């Protein structure tokens, strides 16, 4: 039994304790989901600092609104609050556009050595970080609705129904957005296959090139 399985068994107890006011239980839930929440916020807002603020604000809202949780997927419920906080921020930005400090330089974990996994070999870590950067840049070029569906399902590992609950849309909408996003990603990534690590390349010409 791995760590994730043991957490899922305890999740119901933690949620119950948190709904009775236990901040420690809620923080235990946050520790498990904060990475997914922050990544969703980052892909929606395209700004680490704004994603940080939105994630924190969403977690406070989630704690205060825990009484409204009616069962089902807790992570979908939590990510929905994060997504709503991000949409609020996007609406606010549209009213008052501003330039973020992060536009002057990427606030990445390379600047924070505590966040690098020490058990990973340096070249592997560099390759994985490079792949992540490539995917983030490619995802950023997708339309917002496709981007969110792709991130929820393929990056954060949500099932279709969870993603549909998070975005409050039908499952069919998630499927179609996801299919279009994947097709777009395939076109964008295979246009420059040399940027992908070797294990993610196919031999010979791609079907995208063959169709041209």
């Amino acid at each position, binding site marked *: 039994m791995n760590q994730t399985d043991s957490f899922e068994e305890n999740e119901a107890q933690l949620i119950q304790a948190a709904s009775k006011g236990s901040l420690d239980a809620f923080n235990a839930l946050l520790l498990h989901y*904060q*990475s997914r929440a922050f990544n969703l916020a980052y892909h929606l807002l395209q700004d680490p600092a704004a994603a940080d603020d939105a994630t924190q604000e969403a977690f*406070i809202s989630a704690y205060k609104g825990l009484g409204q949780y009616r069962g089902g997927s807790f992570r979908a419920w939590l990510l929905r609050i994060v997504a709503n906080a991000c949409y609020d921020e996007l609406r606010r930005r549209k009213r008052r556009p501003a330039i973020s400090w992060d536009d002057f330089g990427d606030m990445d*974990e390379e600047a924070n050595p505590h966040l690098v996994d020490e058990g990973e070999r340096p070249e592997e870590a560099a390759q*994985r970080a490079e792949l992540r950067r490539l995917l983030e840049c490619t995802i950023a070029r997708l339309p917002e609705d496709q981007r969110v569906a792709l991130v929820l399902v*393929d*990056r954060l590992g949500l099932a*279709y129904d969870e993603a549909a609950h998070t975005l409050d849309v039908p499952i069919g909408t998630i*499927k179609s957005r996801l299919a279009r996003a994947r097709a777009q990603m395939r076109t964008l990534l295979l246009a420059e296959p040399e940027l992908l690590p070797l294990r*993610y390349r196919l031999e010979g010409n791609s079907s995208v090139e063959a169709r041209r």
Partner: protein
Amino acid sequence: MNRQLWDDLTLSAYVDGQLNSEDQHALEADMARDATLRRQVQEIQLVVTALREAPLREPPRNFLLTPTMVDAPQKSAKAPQVRRTSLLFTRWATALSAIAFVVALTFQLRLGTLIPLGTTPPMAPMMEDTAHLERNFTFAPDELPPEDGTAEAVVAPLTVLEAAPPATTEDKFCSADEICEEPAPVGITSTPILDSGESEGTFPPPLPEIEGEVPTGSPAAAPPQLSLALALALLTVLLAGVSWWLSHRQ
């Protein structure tokens, strides 16, 4: 089934294992015959694998909540709404006031230019008083004061000497302040000189020493500038009041 019928939606569902068994078998049969379709599915699978295996961006910090954070009052969603409404109505009030000001100013300027030539423009009461005094204090050319700058030349044209002789230059020569504080000579009463008709010069009237009835302007004939300014002020106050009421109504 022809591979042309396999769209991105179906291929994506196949990669996720979401197709029903019938469609899945049909697609796999087509893939066995069609290398391009097979490659297309493999590429989607590779994209999905890369997306799922690539590490997530690490959060810059832990987002653990503290009692202080959850006890602090959260930003209300209503508050910005009130501020936005207030700002909106204040902007409208400002814009309308500016328009009213321009209209009033334009109207005032047009009023000044629309008066026909050869007619006397309406005069303010204060101006009428002054005109009356100027008319009363005109005098004949032979009574014009000498242009030697003496105190006598300043005082004498204003009055008709009836009893006392005029003050000499030596007696009256003093500084400007002393002249202002000097009371009128004893025995001299100031009597308005009635229309002489031929006079060409006028002299500033000493208002406090006027005897007789002083004409006053009619209060009913308010000057247009005053009316416009009053209307503008009332409009501005009205708009400000409406904007305040609308912004605090919620």
